[in-house]
């Protein structure tokens, strides 16, 4: 199936569950590859592959510290994903705000009917 290369598209880059897991971990602060391997619980070559994809779309940054490579989150690169979801949230929020009004009315009506029964 035709699909944009994960290496160019931040949406596809975060579509993979393990990569989201890595981003969640990095949201808590900078981590070495070794840390990530231990925390995610998959083989290092796989973690490295996921990190490469995330780096190529700018979602993570890397720096050398001695012999270690340290990764950190670059939240700005994820902004398009946030914006994308927010538009959808807005539609549902509008709809639910109206539902709130309907529910208030049903609640009042029920309380009134309940009072009548007494």
């Amino acid at each position: 199936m035709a699909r944009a290369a994960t290496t160019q598209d931040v949406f596809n880059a975060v579509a993979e569950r393990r990569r989201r897991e890595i981003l969640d971990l990095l949201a808590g602060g900078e981590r070495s590859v070794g840390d990530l391997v231990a925390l995610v619980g998959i083989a290092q070559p796989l973690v490295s592959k996921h990190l490469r994809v995330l780096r190529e779309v700018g979602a993570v940054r890397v720096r050398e510290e001695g012999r270690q490579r340290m990764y950190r989150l670059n939240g700005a690169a994820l902004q398009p994903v946030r914006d994308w979801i927010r538009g959808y949230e807005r539609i549902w929020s509008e709809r639910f705000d109206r539902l709130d009004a309907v529910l208030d009315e049903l609640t009042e009506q029920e309380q009134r009917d309940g009072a009548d029964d007494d």
Partner: protein
Amino acid sequence: MAPTTTNGTAVVTMPSDTTIQITREFNAPRHLVFRAWTTPELITRWWAGDRGEVTAVEVDLRPGGTWRYVMRANGGFEVAFRGEYSEVVPGERIVSTEIFEAMPDKVAESTVTFTEENGRTTVTILVRHESQEDRDMHINSGMEQGMQSSLDHLEQVAVSLR
């Protein structure tokens, strides 16, 4: 004290590559939320949000029964959704297919769950698409329109309403 209305944001997440989950809490017991969710005259009052007017609602709430919602967007055009119920547990759970009539070959499955705690009800809608592309297109259709500056065009976001 709990506010009369929640007016909170719907929380949208993507639990997997092909699903979208929408969650919201309401300040009402679940039998009332379920009633508002499934009674045509009440659906008419909320389903279009601020984007237009609901012009037709048909609900045959039983497994094998069908539903169809139509709205006229503020821009004047109509959009319609329909589906068939596969599971109905009154007050608790509704499972149905969902088809946007302009794209009839894309069939999504929606599971709506109502849970009550302390008189408040959480509604969770899990929409499962056939592919990641379908799911993303569903969300994109709302976003592309939403980014247009003119409010006249914003109504077209309706194509993503479900």
